[in-house]
């Protein structure tokens, strides 16, 4: 592992709760690691597991999926559907041999700026412990131009 390696973490945040939670963390000046890149989705139920796999394949070291607490979904039941997808995907990835913790899940409401920062901290620490994703990701050197330079 390179000495100054920092993980790249992709977060899929639902528009109504977790994204607002992240926003609150920001406006409240709560600090959290900068390893995270956010993609805002309408609902945690919108997250196609394909997105998560594609992220890992593209060289992302960890993925966080976050939505509204059970019962709080803006679309009534989207997060319940998402929960089932997450449960099966998580088990499937671990079964394949992808390290536990590469993909993590959380509930963060719009009022939980503090929790958001705490979740991001935990996720980042966890991914740092795992090290760079080497099992599945596409190696960037596959795309190096073989020039004589």
């Amino acid at each position, binding site marked *: 592992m390179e000495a100054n390696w920092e993980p790249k973490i992709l977060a899929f945040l639902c528009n109504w709760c977790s994204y607002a939670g992240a926003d609150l963390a920001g406006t409240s000046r709560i600090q959290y690691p900068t390893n995270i890149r956010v993609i805002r989705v309408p609902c945690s139920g919108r997250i196609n597991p394909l997105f998560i796999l594609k992220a890992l394949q*593209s060289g992302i070291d960890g993925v966080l999926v976050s939505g509204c607490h059970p019962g709080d979904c803006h679309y009534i039941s989207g997060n319940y559907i998402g929960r089932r997808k997450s449960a099966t995907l998580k088990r499937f990835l671990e079964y394949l041999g992808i390290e536990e913790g590469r993909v993590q899940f959380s509930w963060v409401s719009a009022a939980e700026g503090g929790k958001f920062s705490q979740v991001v901290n935990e996720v980042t620490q966890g991914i740092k412990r795992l090290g760079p994703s080497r099992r599945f990701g*596409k190696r*960037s050197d*596959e*795309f*190096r*131009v*073989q*020039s*004589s330079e």
Partner: protein
Amino acid sequence: MKLRLDKKDLKSFLQSLIDQYDLYAPVQLTEGVSVYKKIDRPGEVSLTLLNPQKPLKEIFFPQSEVMFDFEKVGKRNQVTSTEEVKKERVILGARPCDIQAISILDEIFLGKDYTDVYFLQKRKLTTIIGFSCNHPLSTCFCSSTGGSPFFREGADLFFIDLEEAFLVELLTEKGMAFQKNRFFKEADPKDISLAKEIEEKASTKGDASVPIERIEKRLNLMMESPFWDRVHEKCMGCRICTYLCPTCHCFDIVDEALNNRGHRVRNWDSCLSSLYSQETSGHNPRPSGRERTRQRLMHKFNYFPKNFGRVACVGCGRCILYCPVNFDIRQAIELTSPKGIKKEKAEVN
């Protein structure tokens, strides 16, 4: 020129090839599944299966081949050719049908109107050591397509398995370069007569009954035949038969890129896939299995003969062996012949 290679020397012979050339030979990936691969150690070579699953064409025309690399710098494009193949190659263990198929690919990639550089550089640096088929399978029908279990054309050297040893025939200039090979001994007359015996026995086994003669003419009249309405029905539309076919050569050209870097890649493609002919507008000239199966068979037995004077099938039998639904090309060919049509009718009534 006929020589002899004792089996006990095979390992050392392979090692000498590895030292001097890039050696390619069948390698078993898992029990019963093998492919042609570059060999690092003699022990990797596996000659138990008659034909590996993936055909020899892969060595000259890989399933996925980078044509060039590129990088975008601002508005400028920087393009770099892939490195040229420089080291001489030897292919060992190719069977007559696979070798014959390479001469079909020659027509395509080294034809009069166009030379494919990627194919050419590998082709001209390669020496092919063919292996006789002493025990052809029941699915082999090379004898119907102009070959035979001992068909030597296209091979530079030809090995005939005599149990204890190989009889080695040097057939071309490239083959003659091996004349002085330290593992080759002079062949005994006994070896030669034994080889002849084996050859005669094997050639009775190659199925010569598939009616390929005049198939081009028959198919000329069959473009809109109801034959196509039925023959395709069981085809599921996978690409096994086309990818594993030693003569199928259709390809797709795509760009693979990450950020500003990438390469243009040539991948095998298959006429049995619906996207193969689908146009961007959504129009598909071959909208169903009927047209796609027709394309596959017509290309092999009508269009290709029209353009090159020979059928694009060498009778290796892979498409028959590996089809998940037992689509048998021999049966399809037979159904185009008067005899086959009669037989089909007889079975109905």
